[in-house]
């Protein structure tokens, strides 16, 4: 018998192991506590991290009784994994709504972390109790914000940068402080982070969500890759902007996260019939997909999933007769 077979035998679960007495009750208690430790860190690759803002944890004074007529905490299945979009800022003297161009989003990953985009991007630990969010030290980018974006961000930090009472009612997430300040969110109408991106391909892969698409701005077209590991996790994205009439010098690719894979994308000459991702010797080549982008006269887009790219990998474009039209610089790291 080989060592592999021996190993299989020794790793087999013995009958009756473990003793499952009380396991479900312990599960229910744990679920109720919702005590989730901080899990892996995540980030948005498109956000330029200029620094970290640290907000100290303060203790929320008590408040009498639960919010009436509101379905609360226990099943925070709706709270986690949802893209919550800010709709109203409640202040003691007035309530106001962010302008449409300010897309402030809050999400909880169900693994003890939240992330938010107001003007800057924030991420931090959170413990979700039955009706209180215990927000830990959060970190964020420090891009200068002005106008409505700044006002939204300040209101957001006032409420979320601390313990805050939460409830969901009629599809609305309410966060309320004892002093009358609060925020209202609705389920965002799209899960994807970039609103006006025209999809070339989108879907799910290994439980993650992805989208590859384009956006036109004057004579420019941006190609963008968006990925998240699970609902509630922050989105990661990568992008490139091309002029619509400028020829493609080389099909140098961009590489976006895609869980255990990577998404390689870029642009190739318009008469390209086949694009191949070629890893270093000994590994199989991968044929990538071609996409026509409306308005792009001197190029077409390509993209596809590959294993973690290695040094020396290339992208090569061929025409319909198999003649090479161009190749990228070899990947340097």
């Amino acid at each position, binding site marked *: *018998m*080989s*060592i*592999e077979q*021996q*190993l*299989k*035998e*020794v*790793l*087999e*679960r*013995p009958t009756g*192991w*473990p003793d*499952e007495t009380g*396991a*479900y009750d*312990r*599960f229910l208690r*744990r*679920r109720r506590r*919702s005590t*989730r430790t901080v*899990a*892996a860190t995540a980030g948005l690759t498109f956000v330029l991290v200029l620094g970290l803002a640290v907000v100290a944890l303060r203790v929320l004074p008590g408040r009498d009784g639960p919010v009436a007529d509101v379905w609360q905490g226990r099943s*925070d*299945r709706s709270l*986690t*994994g949802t893209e919550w979009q800010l709709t109203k800022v409640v202040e003691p003297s007035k309530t106001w709504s962010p302008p449409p161009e300010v897309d402030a989003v809050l999400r909880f990953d*169900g*693994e003890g972390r939240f992330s938010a985009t107001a003007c800057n991007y924030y991420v931090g630990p959170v413990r979700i109790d039955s009706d209180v969010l215990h927000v830990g030290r959060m970190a964020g980018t420090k891009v200068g914000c002005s106008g409505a974006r700044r006002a939204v961000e300040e209101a957001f930090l006032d409420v979320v940068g601390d313990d805050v009472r939460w409830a969901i009612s009629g599809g609305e997430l309410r966060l309320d402080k004892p002093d009358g300040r609060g925020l209202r969110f609705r389920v965002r109408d799209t899960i994807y982070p970039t609103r006006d991106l025209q999809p070339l391909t989108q879907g799910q892969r*290994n*439980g993650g969500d992805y989208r590859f698409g384009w956006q036109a701005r004057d004579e420019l077209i941006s190609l963008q890759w968006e990925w998240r590991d*699970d*609902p509630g996790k922050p989105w990661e994205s990568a992008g490139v902007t091309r002029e619509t009439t400028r020829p493609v010098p080389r099909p140098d690719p961009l590489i976006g996260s895609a*869980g*255990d894979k990577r998404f390689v994308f870029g642009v190739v000459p318009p008469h390209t019939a086949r694009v191949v991702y070629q890893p270093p010797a000994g590994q199989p080549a991968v044929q990538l997909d071609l996409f026509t982008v409306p308005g792009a006269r001197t190029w077409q887009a390509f993209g596809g999933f590959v*294993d*973690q790219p290695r040094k020396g990998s290339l992208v090569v474009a061929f025409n319909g007769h198999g003649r090479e039209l161009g190749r990228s610089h070899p990947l340097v790291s």
Partner: protein
Amino acid sequence: MDDKDLEFREFFASQYGRLCWLGLLLTGNRAKAEDLAQEALVRTFWMWPRVRTYDRPEDYARKVLVNRHRSLLRRALLEARHARRTRVEEGYLPDHGEDAMVLWSAVQRLSPRQRAVLVLRYHEDLSEAAVARLLRLPVGTVKTLAHRGLAKLRAELGPLSQDYVRFGKEDR
């Protein structure tokens, strides 16, 4: 209790033991194993409306457990080292023969990554590519870890294993 809760409870009953055992194989410690299994099931519960639509919801729970284990190892190296030192004393020992006990103890002394690769390959019957996806490692690294892990087991088992391999269990 609504239908979804009942459905999840059935899922819990079918998966708890399996996840506990996987946790034990990865950590070598019963308490940690149960903690990992409970955590994986709680997190699966939060995502149940989505996970229940998957072809194999149990794969999601396993992914959460392995991720959690990986994350704990990464973030608490000292704790993991301590766990490794104390693992054999605290852990389970199979009671079906001396050879099995020797091999089990040798598995416990593997590095966490080697052990995880071998457990997922030979207990969970995953392909190298699937193990690589789950552990977020290149396939080449998984192959190396498996190769070195098996080599270490062979070396630890010594002549016993060599005879075992050469003549087969039935002939001994």
